[in-house]
């Protein structure tokens, strides 16, 4: 690529510079409005999105925020999330769980995704289809599968019983939840990684090798940096999903202390609506902050390398 291909001018460029008001109402006219960045019609175009955004995001969030501060404690409800050991621990363990799930899922999906992109073997497409199968499952089914695997009557329990005499059961704990979340996160991440890995330029790897880079150096210096955008987007979805997932935790056990469970308990069992609202708002805010931090960190490391 010597130079970026110059954008071909739109077919109706001439009209874009001399807009005729009569034409503006038709489809072609609106396209010209977008090109010209005329503030008034542009605002009109954005109005539907603004309405939806306001009605289904801003208003509910504001309402949630206000309800959070409307309980017996008042606005101190927000502070109490940090002061109440149960809430704080729930928040911390949810963040740690989600971060761990994201890290492990990225690692597993990257290795698997790269392998699947670079090797052709019989049954490959079936394997890809199977790996993406969990996309269709609700959290309840994932929880059910974890119990079948690592529950009291589960496969791992039976095998460890036969081998060591004691039963290994971890389905009803953080470990079980971790397993379930990794399982249902892998499909999303693997598809993103594969799509990105297919677009890698093989000559970059060959250039690195020609300069003497060993395979691990090619991976560390060329392949992983090139996949970073995919890691960021897939990791963000993975993290956010793990932060807010509820069905699997609910299926596994009530004593698993993750934030969505805590919110559920406060809301339905204790009718503590203000606390539930405050926790909900904080769940969203923490997730957003974590993703924003990750993104800016990735952005600055790119800048530092340049």
């Amino acid at each position, binding site marked *: *690529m*010597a*130079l970026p291909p110059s954008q071909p001018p739109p077919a109706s460029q001439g009209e874009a510079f001399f807009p005729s008001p009569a034409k503006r109402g038709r489809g072609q006219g609106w396209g010209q409005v977008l090109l010209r960045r005329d503030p008034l019609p542009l605002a009109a175009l954005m109005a539907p999105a603004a309405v939806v955004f306001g009605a289904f995001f801003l208003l509910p969030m504001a309402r949630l925020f206000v309800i959070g501060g409307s309980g017996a404690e008042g606005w101190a409800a927000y502070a109490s999330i940090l002061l109440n050991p149960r809430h704080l621990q729930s928040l911390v363990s949810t963040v740690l769980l989600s971060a761990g799930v994201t890290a492990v899922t990225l690692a597993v999906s990257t290795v698997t995704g790269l392998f699947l992109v670079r090797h052709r073997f019989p049954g490959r497409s079936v394997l890809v289809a199977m790996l993406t199968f969990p996309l269709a499952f609700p959290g309840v089914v994932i929880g059910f599968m974890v119990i079948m695997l690592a529950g009291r009557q589960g496969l791992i329990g039976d095998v460890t019983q036969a081998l060591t005499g004691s039963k290994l059961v971890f389905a009803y704990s953080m470990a079980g939840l971790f397993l379930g979340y990794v399982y249902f996160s892998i499909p999303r991440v693997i598809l993103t990684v594969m799509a990105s890995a297919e677009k890698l*330029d093989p*000559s*970059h790897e*060959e*250039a*690195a*090798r*020609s*300069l*003497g*880079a*060993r395979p691990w*150096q090619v991976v560390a*210096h*060329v392949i992983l*940096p*090139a996949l*970073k955008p995919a890691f960021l987007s897939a990791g963000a979805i993975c993290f956010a999903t793990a932060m807010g997932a509820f069905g699997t935790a609910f299926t596994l056990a009530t004593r698993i202390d993750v934030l969505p469970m805590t919110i559920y308990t406060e809301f339905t069992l204790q009718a503590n609506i203000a606390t539930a609202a405050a926790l909900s708002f904080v769940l969203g805010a923490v997730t957003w902050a974590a993703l924003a931090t990750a993104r800016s960190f990735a952005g600055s490391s*790119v800048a530092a*390398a*340049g």
Partner: protein
Amino acid sequence: MSGSFHLDAVPVRLRRCAKTFHGGVRALEPLDLDIRGGETVVFLGPSGCGKTTTLRILAGLERPDEGGRVFYGEDDVTALPIERRNVGMVFQSYALFPNMSVAENVAYGLRVRGVPKAERRERAEEMLAMMHIADLAGRRIDQLSGGQRQRVALARALVVRPRVLLLDEPLTALDAKLRDSLRLEIDRLLRALGITAIYVTHDQAEAMALGDRIVVMSKGRVAQVGTPREIYHRPADAFVADFIGTMNRLPAVAQDGRLLLGRGELPWSGPQGRIEVLVRPEDVALTASGGHVDARIAATVFLGDRTRVVAETADGLTLTVDAPGRTDLARGDAVSLGFDPARLLTLPE
């Protein structure tokens, strides 16, 4: 060019190197080739002719079929992958690492060799200065033009002091003017460095300008190996004759020391019988009268330095002839074509 930077001239040998890809596709028939130390050899041919496969075997990106051998000097490097061959490679797509700056790209080969950071920077800067792009050291790759990118790629390939420099269509992605100037610069650079260089291209002008020798390839085989002059003036077969430059191919009859070319006749000492003679456009003399064959102008193309003329003889032969640029001829003009028997070629067989 820096005079202090000189590289070893390592000879390269290929012995019985063939390549068969999965599914039995033969990309390269068994090839023997000796490349002298410091020589620039250009592999030239249309796409799919096996030139890139040969380069990849030379580089260590592909293994030749069983029995093939690659030597760098006295070392048999057949089993060594590219990362252990100490080559420099330049790609058509430049293949610069987008996550590294220009200086980091150039220093990369030193970095993976464990060279200390200060020395790395010094040697990278020396290379950038040699390529006249010292001021670009801190740039990101996406801030560079195509020509600048290819200079960075050359600097990166050379900084590790490779035994052999391999160039895979390095100028194809550039526009014509830049291609010409960078071609001259690469030529000077290769001479100054004294490195053994192997260059792949489908552009015959590039091959002529750069190659000490050209290897013309077709369908996985070597059609001819020779200097640019040999290839141009004594093509080994019809493929080479057609692929390199423009060649007129005319049916003729040779008998009794005469060559009958349509109604024209000239002295002849070459092969006898019904033959095909070949002649370059610049080897045909275009005159108003007194030549060997009369013809009419069918078309003219003014090229500035010369005028390319398509002439048709009364017997229906069509020839492309080069006349000086100032020649003023129009379609339908009567001309006479003169031939020098010494410049008429025939192909073996």
